[in-house]
């Protein structure tokens, strides 16, 4: 049942040391503000799941919150490496990072199976490559009708999903538009969830009879954090700040410059700093 709360309350109550947490977002709607709050609250030994770990995962890893990463593509899209992620894998700094590495198809199917309440997903994949040699979670199942061997992987069932969306209403029904990623599946697959939104409105706009909505009874905490996806974007509100993604390359390259930035921009601030990025611009579908 959705509860409208503050970000610090939401993270405090939903995310615990040692949890498996999926902060999802596929370029769009990445929950940066919520990720910062996890850093501020000093969570430890998290297993993070995400198809495309990017800046916010680099930050969580660099700050020592994470001991394990389940993922399929970890980079700064269009820019290059995630230096904190690489430092953790290559040098064990600030701590050793265990990897469970998948393909996108596997990760998407694992979330889908989790949302569907299944113990595993089957799909046609992982043929001939080396990933099954380094990931013991990849198995095979035989189709009982054709004899075809299909890939099987366990469903994702995170303890907590953390996502950002455009809007919720006062009952806590959450509407997502645009690039949808796996956020709906991540919330439905998880035991608990935190949803930050650009705005809490009296009533969801009548966008479409088939709008993507997470009903309030499937959602945990709902928190209004305008701008909370920045430097990612919120379709209909503000664009992706590609410039910051490029800047991050320099900020994160050295441990010192990374720490300085985190202290200045995360540890000594609150979610209200995101508000300056929030704005509403014309939407293609409006």
């Amino acid at each position, binding site marked *: 049942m959705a509860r409208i709360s503050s970000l610090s309350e939401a993270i405090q109550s939903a995310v615990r040391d040692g949890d498996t947490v999926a902060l999802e977002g596929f370029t769009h709607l990445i929950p940066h503000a919520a990720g910062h709050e996890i850093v501020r609250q000093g969570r430890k030994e998290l297993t993070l799941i995400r198809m495309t770990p990017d800046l916010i995962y680099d930050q969580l890893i660099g700050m020592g919150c994470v001991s394990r990463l389940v993922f399929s593509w970890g*980079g700064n899209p269009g820019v290059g490496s995630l230096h904190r992620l690489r430092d953790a894998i290559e040098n064990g700094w600030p701590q050793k990072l265990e990897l469970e590495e998948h393909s996108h198809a596997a990760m998407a199917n694992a979330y889908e199976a989790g949302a569907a309440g299944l113990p595993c997903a089957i*799909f*046609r994949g992982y043929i001939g490559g*080396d990933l099954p040699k380094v990931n013991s979670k990849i198995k095979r199942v035989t189709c009982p009708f054709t004899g075809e061997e299909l890939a099987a992987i366990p469903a994702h069932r995170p303890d907590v999903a953390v996502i950002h969306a455009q809007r919720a209403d006062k009952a806590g029904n959450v509407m997502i538009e645009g690039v949808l990623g796996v956020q709906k599946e991540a919330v439905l697959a998880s035991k608990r969830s935190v949803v930050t939104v650009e705005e809490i409105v009296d009533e969801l706009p009548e966008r479409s009879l088939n709008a993507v909505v997470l009903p309030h009874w499937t959602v945990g905490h709902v928190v209004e954090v305008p701008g909370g996806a920045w430097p990612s974007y919120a379709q209909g509100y503000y664009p992706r700040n*590609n410039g910051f993604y490029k800047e991050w390359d320099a900020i994160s390259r050295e441990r010192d410059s990374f720490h300085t930035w985190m202290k200045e921009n995360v540890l000594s601030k609150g979610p209200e700093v995101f508000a300056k990025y929030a704005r509403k611009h014309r939407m293609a579908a409006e």
Partner: protein
Amino acid sequence: MADYKPNEMMTVAAARALKNDDVCFVGIGQPSAACNLARLTHAPNITLIYESGTLATKPNILPLSIGDGELCETALTTVSVPEMFRYWLQGGRIKVGFLGGAQIDRFANLNTTVVGPYDKPKVRLPGGGGAPEIATSCGEIFIIMAQGKRSFVDKLDFVTSIGHVSGGDSRAKLGVKTKGPTKLITDLAMLEPDPETKEMTVVSIHPGVTREQIQENSGWPIKFAAKVGETPPPTQRELEVLRDLHAQTNRAHAEAA
């Protein structure tokens, strides 16, 4: 002849390989530039699909990431990522998949995972992303990669996604029914699989490039087809459209910062 960079030749050659009725799964970077160059020149109706779920998108600027708002705003519609990988990719609805990588071998297997051992990598790369299933589910695969001894290697450190595996019928023997890499477009040449051995073989050399240069930038003894053509240089229009696309993209990305 216009003055151009090897990189531009590579993008133009890749764009030309695409047809108006192709349905194409586009990766970020060179593939995205090539696909949109094709769309803005000879293939206006090409269907471009990005793995973020955007179907039939027509971006005016090149996205920096796979899921930029521009892609969604100009798309026919946008589906969820599970649907993209299930109904669209695995469903066999994509004709051409575009891949690149950090390392490639003579059978066009690709590595985007690690340099060095997996457990103690010298360089940790981003990983496979969509590639392992793009490589086997798309009708055929075009690969676009600049050549060099570090990237065109005798043996991959890690096989992230398969091409023609160990050559011959080894790919088909794994139960894969799609064609695999049919074109490898580099900054020096165009390669295609030998019909028998499936080893990637030079079929066309870019203007001004020598066979020696191609060999020097490859980690294995490179094969040349019996008949090797010369790639036609970029036309004035191709270069204009490509440069304009990059200029608009740079302006837009700078503005957003």
